[in-house]
């Protein structure tokens, strides 16, 4: 996590500088900024930028709708109104309110302010954050993943009406569904109860996997590296295993049999902390950290192309960074699957712990 702080400090130092050289990214600090910026959510879909012959910086991409809950209710406009400004310079006037965007966050300016003023730590002093329900890049990514899942699995489901053996894309998807069922759900939850949790486990598995993979494309998504996303996923798992806990589970968690009475409250406390805090936290941090680290490292290694130019020449630096990045990308493809698998696996394991019934306590 210290690296993020590193990024943010350098961001503050470099503030206002990036505009001067037409947004070229060619120093260590700028690369750090660039990576930090990528890791964050964005309000517009930015593919790449270039400098035109006339020396003007052009951004290629498209804007996304901004939907915010301001002091005067719901406000929405297109993100293009910010003109790619991310430093609070551009003010958008809507419903008599002024909005600006600072580090991917939308701020509402105080009633009488016309420009954002910052304190020494670069916090806005006359503006406050608003609830932001925008279709951000991440939400856009989620929608794409959802759409892909609908397309793929509806066609698979439909295929079974024609015959027992799927055709086309279904041939690829069916073994994956069977894999989740037989390798993740059944062994962890148990033959009797696994069916109830299949919709959640399958959805989460494919959701995370597809988003991880989309994150590796040059489209530049970093959805599963958004803490809000992983928190949400972990909370879903938490709610599911807490609401489906069996009598045995609660008995063992809150009043562990076979242990001296004096220890039971202590154990109950530890168990509860484990189930409510530690387990979801391990889920959300593992996914978040793996994806964020993967993205940072791949981008960092790709940036060697720029950093080593002086020592190895353009071709040498590009070659080195190409092969290292290729190598890392292969690992990342594996990680993309692995993290989806681990998240689903652990979710199934925790659910399995909660729904388990101890036969021996009933027998005698």
């Amino acid at each position, binding site marked *: 996590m210290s690296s993020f*702080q590193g990024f943010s400090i350098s961001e503050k130092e470099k503030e206002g500088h990036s505009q001067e050289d037409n947004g070229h990214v060619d120093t260590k600090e700028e690369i750090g900024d660039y990576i930090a910026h990528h890791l964050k959510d964005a309000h517009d879909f930015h593919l790449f930028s270039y400098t035109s012959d006339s020396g003007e910086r052009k951004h290629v991409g498209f804007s996304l709708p901004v939907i915010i809950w301001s002091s005067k209710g719901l406000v929405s406009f297109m993100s293009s109104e910010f003109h790619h400004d991310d430093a609070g310079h551009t003010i958008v006037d809507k419903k008599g309110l002024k909005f600006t965007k600072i580090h991917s966050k939308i701020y509402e300016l105080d009633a009488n302010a016309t420009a954002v003023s910052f304190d020494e730590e670069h916090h806005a002093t006359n503006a406050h954050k608003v609830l932001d329900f925008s279709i951000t890049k991440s939400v856009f990514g989620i929608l794409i993943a959802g759409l892909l899942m609908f397309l793929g*699995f509806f066609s698979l489901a439909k295929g079974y009406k024609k015959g*027992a053996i799927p055709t086309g894309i279904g041939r690829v998807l069916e073994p994956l569904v069977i894999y989740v069922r037989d390798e993740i759900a059944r062994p962890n939850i148990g033959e009797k109860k696994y069916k109830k949790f299949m919709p959640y486990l399958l959805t989460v598995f494919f959701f995370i996997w597809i988003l991880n993979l989309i994150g590796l494309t040059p489209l530049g998504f970093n959805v599963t590296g958004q803490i809000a996303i992983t928190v949400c996923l972990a909370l879903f798992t938490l709610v599911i295993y807490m609401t489906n806990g069996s009598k045995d589970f609660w008995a063992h968690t809150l009043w562990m049999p076979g242990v001296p009475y004096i220890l039971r409250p202590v154990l109950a406390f530890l168990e509860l902390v484990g189930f409510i805090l530690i387990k979801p936290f391990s889920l959300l941090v593992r996914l978040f950290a793996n994806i964020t680290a993967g993205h940072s490292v791949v981008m960092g290694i790709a940036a060697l192309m720029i950093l080593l130019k002086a020592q190895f020449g353009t071709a040498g630096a590009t070659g080195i960074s190409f092969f290292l990045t290729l190598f890392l990308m292969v690992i990342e493809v594996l990680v993309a699957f692995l993290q989806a698998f681990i998240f689903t696996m652990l979710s199934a394991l925790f659910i399995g712990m909660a729904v388990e019934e101890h036969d021996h306590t009933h027998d005698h």
Partner: protein
Amino acid sequence: MDIFNDFSIGLFAMQAFILIVLIFLLGKFAWKPILNAIEGREEGIKDALEAAENAKKEMQNLQADNDRLLKEARAEREAMLKEAREIKDKMISDSKEQAQVEGDKIIKQAQAAIEGEKKAALADIKNQVGSLSVEIAEKVIKEQLSDKDKQLKLVEGLLGDIKLN
């Protein structure tokens, strides 16, 4: 701290909403039919395998039955042949015996008849011999009695015999 600063409640809410919609829609229109279809297919395969196994067993049973039936039929044929042979032998021996008895009986009857005939013939011969003897004796007596002396002599001889007795 940056991480907490990055946490966007709006993104969280959007994600939660979309995820719930995804779980429900996919659950209803994709996962359920997919899993049911896979399960149905697996059941089908299992049943088909079991049916094949059963059919194989049945075939084996049928084969065994056939073999048994064949064996039984063969044994029956064997038994029938044996019985027929026995009956034949018995009939032959029976008729032989009967023939023997019949023959013996006929022979005995013949012997008896011969004996009777012989007795009758002997009796006849005896009668004829008797009458012939009487005739001869008559003629002899008639011859001898034609002379008075001879008659007296004979009477005297006869009387002498009687006296001696």
